[in-house]
């Protein structure tokens, strides 16, 4: 190992590794499974290390989360293509993912919120996770998800509305 490698590794450890929590949290909510999220987060971290020299300073968290996000979508495409293709059919999505039974079984609010969040299409789920759990600014969200800031605002509005209605109203076709 030469000096440059050591320096590189140290920089990586200082800049990127502090965001492993953020990486796992985003992956967990995007792939909706802890075990799969561990694999995806690990793969994303390795990828980010291999291409660390392409990172020229700036917001390391946003840079890492961008890679995590792309790795998640690739994983979803490979393992759950249905989920991605159905994402614009919001009504259908609500129906298939959260039955009234699963919502009713969820006793405490944490479970209820988790289920409601998981019924949202991935694009809305990620924007809520980045904003509400990760505390990202619009600018950071725009950088991570590669959408314009104006779209961040309108997507957040739709995502919040959907989450709200997933919490308040039972999904379509659900009658106790």
């Amino acid at each position: 190992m030469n000096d440059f490698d050591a320096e590189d590794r140290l920089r990586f450890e200082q800049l990127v590794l502090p965001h492993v929590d953020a990486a796992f949290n985003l992956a967990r909510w995007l792939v909706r499974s802890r075990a799969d999220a561990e694999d995806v987060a690990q793969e994303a971290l390795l990828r980010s290390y291999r291409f660390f020299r392409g990172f020229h300073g700036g917001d390391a968290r946003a840079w890492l989360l961008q890679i995590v996000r792309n790795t998640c979508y690739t994983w979803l495409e490979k393992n759950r293509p249905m989920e991605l293709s159905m994402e614009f059919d919001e009504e259908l999505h609500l129906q298939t993912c959260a039955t009234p039974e699963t919502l009713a079984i969820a006793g405490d609010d944490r479970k209820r919120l988790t289920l409601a969040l998981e019924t949202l299409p991935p694009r809305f789920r990620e924007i809520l996770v980045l904003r509400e759990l990760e505390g990202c600014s619009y600018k950071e969200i725009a950088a991570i998800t590669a959408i314009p800031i104006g779209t961040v605002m309108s997507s957040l509005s739709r995502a919040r509305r959907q989450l709200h209605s997933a919490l308040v109203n039972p999904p379509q076709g659900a009658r106790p």
Partner: protein
Amino acid sequence: MRCDFADSLLQGYFDGELRGRRAAEFERHLRHCAHCATELVDLDLLRDRLHLAQLYEPATAALRQKINDPLQAAAPATAVSRPLVWHWLAAAAALLFVAIVLWRVGHGVPGDDYQAELAGEIVDALVRSQQPGQMNGIASSEERVVEGWLDGRARFAVPVRDFTNNGFPLKGGRVDAIEGHAVAVLVYERNGHPINVFIWPTRERDSPPRTGSRRSFQWVDWRKGKMEFCAVSDGSPLDLEQLRQLINSFA
């Protein structure tokens, strides 16, 4: 009936992302739009609910291990070593940093945003410092011991006080780096919750306290006597305020 603003400005206003004129514009609108006013309350309730549920899921120790191990073996993509270029890049980055700082001072970036951003970084640093093996500090309740330890490392005089008599015993100190600068951290304890007070010198004038939260932590940030303080804790915000007043009475 939905209001046209609901999908755009309302969100930005709620998230504290509107500046100056746009914020003022929305506030004028808010005065006579009951829809937006109600919507704001709903958004706030939803956010509280999300935060209370503590949905954030940090990485497990096993995952950290799995990430760390291969790093020791894997090599970055381009194996060619270019130390010269590297040094030039470092010099350029340093120049850029100075330029940004000067620009910030010259243009007076709104204090609020900058403070909030900084507080965010501080919370991240705190979370980082809590990971095993990350502790770089001294555990002591003796003012002089902590002060002596910090003296050689922080490069500025740190006002160290123990507030045991007021219910905030000093537990120790450490140094950390925020935005590339060394900062001193004093650790107090209150009702079983540690309170970390980040301290560094500033050229700015005194400022009133500003509070906020990030992840599951509360923070309060203020400036007094050419020092900036940011106290962070996962305990009660009231405790933070009490400690802030204690520190201020000596600063």
